[in-house]
């Protein structure tokens, strides 16, 4: 199958520091890819280049068969590349549906003259998308500040799905969660897989990655040092790749 995303020779330098060095990777529809590596290995920098936060110093990104240039986060969003950050990127002072529609609010005409927010529409659409993903949140009018970590994660994922994510990137999606909530988020990733949405998941939790990913890419010091099919490897070998005691 043709890859949805293909990255060739991606490099990012911050002054004298090479954060990502000649990195290659690909991803197919409905595939869950685990991106692993120690702190500072360059995982976050890779996804920030894919999601438009940093421009690459060098290299090419192909998405749905075409080379793309992503200048800013809006470009990435418009192409269907949705990223869920470990610090969540939700506005805690706004309610659930306002966050799902943040930056892309649905408007309606008021007195035939002014564009105002269409709260009813945004509420109804948000209910539908949450229902489709089996997510329970008491009221979508509640501010994010009132929700648990898992619920917030679910809101962030729903937002991506609502906006028709062609690729979902998740940075440490379970890091701040309790055990039960971690399971819910991982279930959500499996749901996405059945809906054929490709997912890149960054995590330190080896167990999480092994339970949902199909394939693993391991980075060390900005370089790709190994790639494994999950079914054909084990956590010990992957830890070895991460710390450098096993050769790719």
């Amino acid at each position, binding site marked *: 199958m043709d890859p949805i995303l293909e990255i060739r020779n991606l490099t990012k330098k911050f002054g004298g520091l090479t954060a990502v060095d000649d990195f290659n990777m690909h991803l197919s529809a409905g595939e869950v890819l685990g991106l692993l590596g120690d702190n500072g290995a360059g995982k976050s920098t890779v996804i920030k280049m894919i999601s438009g936060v940093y421009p690459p110093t060098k290299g090419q990104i192909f998405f749905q068969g075409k080379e793309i240039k992503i200048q800013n986060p809006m470009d990435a969003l418009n192409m269907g590349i949705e990223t869920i950050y470990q610090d969540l990127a939700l506005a805690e002072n706004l309610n659930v549906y306002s966050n799902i529609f943040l930056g892309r609010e649905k408007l309606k005409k008021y007195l035939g003259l002014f564009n105002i927010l269409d709260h009813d529409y945004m509420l109804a659409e948000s*209910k539908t998308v949450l229902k489709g993903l089996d997510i329970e949140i008491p009221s979508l009018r509640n501010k994010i500040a009132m929700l648990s970590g898992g619920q917030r994660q679910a809101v962030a994922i729903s937002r991506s799905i609502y906006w028709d994510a062609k690729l979902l990137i998740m940075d440490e999606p379970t890091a701040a969660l309790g055990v039960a909530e971690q399971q819910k988020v991982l279930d959500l990733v499996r749901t996405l897989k059945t809906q054929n949405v490709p997912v890149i998941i960054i995590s330190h939790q080896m167990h999480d990655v092994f339970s949902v990913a199909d394939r693993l890419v391991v980075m060390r010091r900005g370089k790709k040092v190994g790639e494994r099919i999950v079914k054909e490897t084990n956590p010990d070998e992957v830890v070895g790749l991460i710390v450098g005691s096993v050769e790719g």
Partner: protein
Amino acid sequence: MDNGLTISDRDGTLNLLIRIGRNWAILFLLLEVGFFSLTGTGYFSLRNFQNILVASTTVMLLATGQTFVIITGGIDLSVGFIVGFSGVICAKTMVGLDAAGVPQFLSIPIGIAVALIFGFVPGLVNGLLVAKLRVPAFIATFGMYGVAYGVAEIISGNVPVHNLPPAVGFIGNGYLLYYLPGRSSLFRLPPNLSPEELKQVVGLIPNVVMIALLLILVFAFVLAKTRFGQHTYAIGGNMEAAKRAGINVSRHLIKIYMISSFFAASAGIIYVMKFVTGRADAGSARMLDAVSAVVIGGASLFGGTGSIVGTVIGALIVACLEIGLVNLAIPTFNLYIAVGAILIFAVLVDQFFPEITYKK
């Protein structure tokens, strides 16, 4: 939870306390009006309440602009002197045109337009400093506070600008409606009044209050109902989230500081209309009142919350207090102590009981 989408029941007592906490400003305002009505002379009267509204226009205007800034998590300390800056420009332009023989139906609107245009400049600079050059809002606008004052003094030549066209004061001190049973008229006194009738005419809705309320209503609508308003809240709640959601945060912030500057300029023009003079230090003392009004009105200095309705209530609290102290012949410098103390109290409430401002 069988229906996942209903509002869950919460502890009733806590909810009640939170409701009281959130509405403490309106309760405080009512208590204040009640107190001064009982202790003062002629406080509870139409005339006095209109005076309170007139006295509060400057603070209401400054505070409305300030509300946008504070919701984004910033602060605009320059507004007090932008009042003087634009007021002096407004007055100088009118005086200059008047001296050159330009009729006042032209010189007045031109003066207002020039003051509004120049009034955007400090806001634009503040916005660029904060949004593009990452200068903390406190410092950028504090610097502008000094610059605006100095420039205003230079323009005015260090003396108040007088000799404005006569219609200025007529507009600035006029009323929308002059009420005399059977002989009411709009914008001007009914013609041919006897001295006896002149005493009985009641002016209703001062022009300056009407203009201020119109501006405030428009921007209350913008903040509460539009995408621009929603993005203002989002930036204050989580600036990174707003950026990642594709909102152009720098451009938005520049607009926010220009709105604040626009309101300060409007307040400056209204000052000129009301007092028929342009002074560089016209609004200097009002910055504390404006910030206080916003915070008393429920906005958090940490950003993300606030409303124009709250701000208007906050401004009324300050104005009722000011007029009340005058009414009781208490020296008005006590006002600064009271307003400063209320401001600190409001911030403490916000800091220690965040659920009051944060939860809906």
